[in-house]
């Protein structure tokens, strides 16, 4: 099984689908997932990262339903096969 990432809202059309299986080895960190994504989909960079390369504060990466900043190792958290990553921005429509 691969690491699966779900994309929401404005991110989805950039990636081209809701769900991606990431071609990364088990043990890859959340940071490596992010690096892979912005390299593979350059248009994601502007949607995810500010001018300093930090994740925008209206964007979240969750691993198995947990917000990455609150994981013990944060962006250095290692992922295992079958982990599910959700990447989503704030939306405001009503």
């Amino acid at each position: 099984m691969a690491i699966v990432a779900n994309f929401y809202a404005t991110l989805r059309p950039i990636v081209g689908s809701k769900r991606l299986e990431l071609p990364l080895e088990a043990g890859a960190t959340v940071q490596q997932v992010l690096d892979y994504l912005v390299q593979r989909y350059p248009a994601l960079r502007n949607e995810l990262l500010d001018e300093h390369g930090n994740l925008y504060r209206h964007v979240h990466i969750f691993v198995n339903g947990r917000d990455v900043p609150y994981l013990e190792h944060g962006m250095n958290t290692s992922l295992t096969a079958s982990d599910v990553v959700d990447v989503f921005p704030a939306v405001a429509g009503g």
Partner: protein
Amino acid sequence: MQTAANGLSAAELRRYARHLTLPEFGLEGQQKLRAASVLLVGLGGLGAPTAMYLAAAGVGRIGLVDYDVVDESNLQRQVIHGQSMLGKPKVLSAAARIHDINPYVEVVPYQTALRRDNALDIFRDYDVIVDGADNFATRYLVNDACVLLDKPNVHGSIFRFEGQVSVFWAKRGPCYRCLYPEPPPPGMIPSCAEAGVLGVLPGLIGLVQATETVKLIAGIGAPLIGRLLLYDALDMTFREVKLRKDPHCPICGEQPRITELIDYDEFCGTPGLHTHPFDTAAVPEITVHELRRRLESAELERTNTWLVDVREPYEWQIVHFPQARLIPMREVPQRLDELRQASELLVYCRSGARSAEVVRYLHTQGFKNAKNVRGGILAWAREIDPNTPVY
């Protein structure tokens, strides 16, 4: 026969019979609903179904905040409004519908934009606030007013085929700023008007909000506090993620820096509702009459002037100038090199508001030759060619 038994009349007992039969809800739940007050911020896609169900359920007092009037393009999803209410204030249209659904509900309409100078006064009189706004500035305003007054904020937001729902209540869990400490840069996340929205989507999200509101009032079940539901209509999936209260949150954290309402338009970098949407005088512009003259004289090509349409592709399909090139607003920052080939840029959109934002942005990037087409396609339809499709 009239009865004052338990504070509900015989007619009310008949009306709410199916609630009274629910062992977990019963008479006590119904009495709590009748004693409760709920404020709906926004009577759009989310507020419309929420208002109808909360009224039917028997919430005693419902406040409605919306400055807008009913437009034809609303009717695809804002089910509380009908054809006969086109052009009427949404709060009055909704109030009429609520009275018809349940005459026992007291409705308080506020036909105004929610602002920092009226939010606390309005919120103070309500037990639960339901956020169905359509912009980031109002969402931060709703959150901050709720935190300052210790009110639960039943949040729903939508985008195309997806929705996000949670209950933010700083006393019992995270607030909106714990999840989203800062808004996106202006223009990065399109609105429903810009991006489109599946009509049935806000029905579902709004009714999750209505459900949470009823649960909070009746004190039943497990509220959606500290949890965010991500709904996807295309996959038909609900994903739940866990939210944490941020100890460094600027308004509900251990050392709050925000202790009163702030300027939310400035915070979000968006033009305020107190600014007229067509007040674009801050950027260089041309009128639609000047545009017509230049189009008819075929001057654009000679002077290497580009007419740039910054709307979304679906809007382009509805109507566009044949001489124009489509560069949707959010692609502009990535396509500056392309734009540099032009000697002059004339930028338009539907109303002139988005294009003014783009022109303002282009000027910060050194494009001193960029001008806004004032009033956009709507002005063209009004002043030049009445056969232009408007939407």
